[in-house]
């Protein structure tokens, strides 16, 4: 029996004489819990409302009650069985800005993810249009997998205005957006055609020899690339740049089997789908760690998922080690190579960028990184367009009913982009890139593509 359960006469507690100072010891009143227990986090909320003032959705949507309600307040309410979860939780875009706003370390996004999961599981009609639509959007990787088998046909079909209006009417996927094009060749197809791991090992060895780094133990320079769905199916150039850049520094790249990181699934409350994907990812990535690799991602939402959301929501063996050994690609190079010196010797031409830091990069402490890195590269400049959210938040801005909200959130970023001298945008997040392009018409690049151009292409 714990101390907390020791029966005491309540009148004793009020009698100051009964408990002298020396005897009084406060006790742990909450028993240790095996299951996920968000109560301590909820109790840390002192209702300062700073999270509400940082929430981009609440800023433009007066119907949305904000992260404080969705998190600690709703968590308390829903502990009672007779209370449903408020459907407004589906209006949270999972940007996770509330996490960095909270001065008290309340795990807000974790609470939102669990509440959303429970809402979808228990309260959402599984045959409803919204559920079907969300399930399709959340499982973009599966859809893209089919589409990439016949990319030209898929591009034709998805770019067809008739299909788009069917999508909107039937499914509630907005017809305002241009569906991202599928690449003719996926990243993985390119990787295998190029000779996979064996080729990378060889190129890395050659690079180390050339860099006078031949003595470096090959085992120290090995990374496993988590490419995610988007750079596999839609922007394989980003993945190729990542491989070439890392090989340039002498790293042997591995590309383990993988599923979607789960980000769109968390945001749509599809926790069961996310868990299945996470199980595969943790197993495969943990195996790569066993082989001496660190995990690299080029999409900041993918790295966010592996680093924070997996450990918050799942407990597969290896989850913590995958979280601790996962890095964003540029971050990894900054930590392990003298990237600044390397770039000081390189140059590119007319590379002016309007840089937007994705919310999920901010949360990982990576917000200023691309700007800092490009500062050292002759010919390149990235101007930060401020701390507003792009508004698309993955699948959020694809929903017919959320499209206007998404564009209203993004308006500040569009304005700031157009205020800069640059006519090209830059970001690490594929859906932020989509939104940036949609709102300004700018071409958007990934920092890795610029690094690739500066360090690798020039050599060839």
């Amino acid at each position: 029996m714990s101390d907390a359960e020791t029966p005491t006469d309540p009148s004793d507690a009020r009698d100051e004489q009964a408990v002298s100072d020396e005897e009084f010891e406060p006790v742990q009143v909450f028993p240790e819990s095996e299951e996920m227990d968000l109560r301590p986090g909820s109790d840390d909320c002192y209702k300062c409302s700073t999270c509400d003032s940082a929430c981009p959705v609440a800023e433009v949507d007066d119907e949305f009650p904000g992260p404080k309600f969705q998190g600690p307040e709703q968590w308390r309410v829903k502990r009672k069985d007779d209370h449903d979860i408020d459907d407004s939780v589906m209006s949270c875009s999972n940007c996770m800005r509330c996490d960095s706003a909270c001065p008290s370390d309340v795990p807000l996004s974790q609470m939102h993810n669990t509440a959303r999961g429970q809402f979808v599981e228990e309260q959402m009609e599984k045959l409803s249009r919204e559920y079907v639509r969300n399930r399709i959007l959340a499982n973009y990787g599966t859809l893209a997998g089919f589409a990439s088998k016949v990319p030209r046909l898929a591009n034709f079909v998805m770019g067809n205005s008739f299909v788009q209006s069917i999508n909107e009417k039937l499914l509630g996927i907005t017809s305002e957006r241009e569906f991202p094009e599928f690449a003719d060749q996926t990243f993985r197809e390119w990787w295998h055609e190029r000779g996979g791991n064996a080729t990378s090992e060889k190129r890395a060895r050659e690079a180390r020899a050339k860099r006078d780094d031949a003595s470096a133990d090959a085992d120290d320079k090995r990374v496993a690339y988590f490419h995610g769905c988007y750079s596999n199916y839609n922007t394989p150039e980003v993945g190729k740049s990542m491989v070439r850049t890392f090989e340039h520094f002498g790293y042997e790249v591995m590309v383990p089997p993988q599923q979607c990181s789960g980000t769109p699934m968390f945001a749509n409350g599809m926790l069961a789908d996310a868990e299945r994907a996470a199980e595969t990812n943790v197993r495969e990535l943990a195996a790569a760690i066993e082989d001496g690799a660190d995990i690299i991602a080029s999409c900041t939402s993918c790295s966010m998922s592996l680093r924070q959301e997996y450990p918050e929501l799942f407990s597969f063996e290896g989850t913590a080690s995958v979280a601790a050994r996962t890095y964003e690609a540029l971050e990894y190079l900054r930590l392990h190579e003298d990237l600044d010196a390397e770039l000081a010797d390189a140059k590119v031409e007319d590379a002016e960028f309007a840089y937007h830091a994705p919310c999920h990069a901010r949360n990982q402490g990576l917000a200023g990184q691309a700007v800092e890195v490009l500062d050292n590269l002759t010919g390149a400049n990235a101007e930060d367009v401020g701390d507003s959210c792009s508004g698309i938040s993955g699948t959020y801005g694809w929903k017919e009913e959320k499209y206007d909200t998404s564009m209203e959130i993004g308006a500040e970023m569009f304005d700031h982009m157009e205020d800069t001298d640059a006519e090209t945008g830059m970001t690490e997040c594929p859906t932020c890139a989509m939104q940036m392009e949609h709102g300004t018409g700018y071409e958007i690049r990934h920092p890795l593509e610029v690094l690739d151009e500066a360090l690798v292409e020039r050599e060839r």
Partner: protein
Amino acid sequence: MAIEDDVTVVGGGLAGMTAALAAAREGADVRLLSHKDSTLRSASGLVDVLGYDADGTLLADPFEAIADLPDSHPYRTVGVEGVREGLALFDAVVGDRYRGDHTDRNALVATHGGSVKPTARYPASAAPGLASDERSVLLVGFETVTDFDAPLAADHLRAAGVPFEVEGATVQFPGDFRADAARTRLADALDANERLEVGAAGSGGSGRSGRSGGGAGGGESGYTTSLPARKALAETVKDHLDGTERVGFPALLGQHETDEIRADLEAELGAAVFEVPMGSPSLPGMRLEGAFQRACRDAGVRFTTGNPVVGYEERDADRHDGGVAAVRVNRNGAAIPFHADQFVLATGGLVGKGVDSDREGVREPIFDCHVPAPSDRYDWFADEAFGDHPFARFGVETDDDLRPLDREGEPAFSNLRAAGAVLGGSDFAAEKSGSGVSLATGVAAGRSAAREVTR
């Protein structure tokens, strides 16, 4: 290799940003590491230097009283000149957004609880509300902004013996906002001068109001009418005015257009309009955060926010100078080092988590700097709620150069300085000295650190 800077500042509050700015202006490459968004969002925006002496007597001139402080007080370390330098940097950053730099005397500002607080610098938006002014005051509260009860605050001010007539009125903020609308949302509406529905209430479920901005006229229909937010707010207050010379609102008059909003309200009401500083989330605090962040960025300070600093790496043992080589940031289990030549610790006090305690003792969690405290924890506090609590003064002790001292009274590291509430020896709540300590020690620590790398 790694991420390397001249000076790394740990902490993103007023002390941290001041130290970073001071160091950058001396020519150093500076990085500021902070775990979360700046705590200035929770600050009232008032800048206190020293409001009360040890006996609780109100001080007219804070500078005069510094010599009477105990040796352990941070002001004694930096001296009166150091305090003035801190304020000079502050004045340069905020420009005409603040008042009070024309005098050494404390101003008396009414707070949202209805008490009167001595402070050295106050937002221009609060200036017409000074308690030493004899013009009559109407305090206006809003039904949904629950932490400002205007009639109660008026009662408290009368009880405090202010030299003016004061009344309080609670009104409904115009427009169709949700009952728990964030203060920032109301501020946004005033910033954009959105058109708000006024007149007959209960348009029920009509959703959010338009955001079409200023201009007069518009499509009135039925028995409601829509007005620009500032005009609508003035209309709501007019009936309560009754010839009052000054009107005080809770501090939510815009995030960006505060001057214009006040001018518009003053023109409509024919009375001076001021803001009453509020608790978290604080619009004056957010405006101050913005001003400091812009100044830091302009000076080249790099910000890295999002993960806590949890430890440090020592310099090579063969250098034998006991210096810090890097601080370590914990990012979901990975330790990310940030190297620098000099470091400034500005992580806050017991409230800001820069000083931590458990039943065994009191500690500074990053560098494990010595924090003097009685061994028996029942000696950490006084019995009375508002008594002279020892815990309020807990923090690190330093040498004259703000370097934290170890148990033996020697500098713990050759290249680490401390600034702000992590320093022991001051009770900011009782003395009203929080911002002054942050500014004065921030400037001193930042400049001292920068001199080590630029000389």
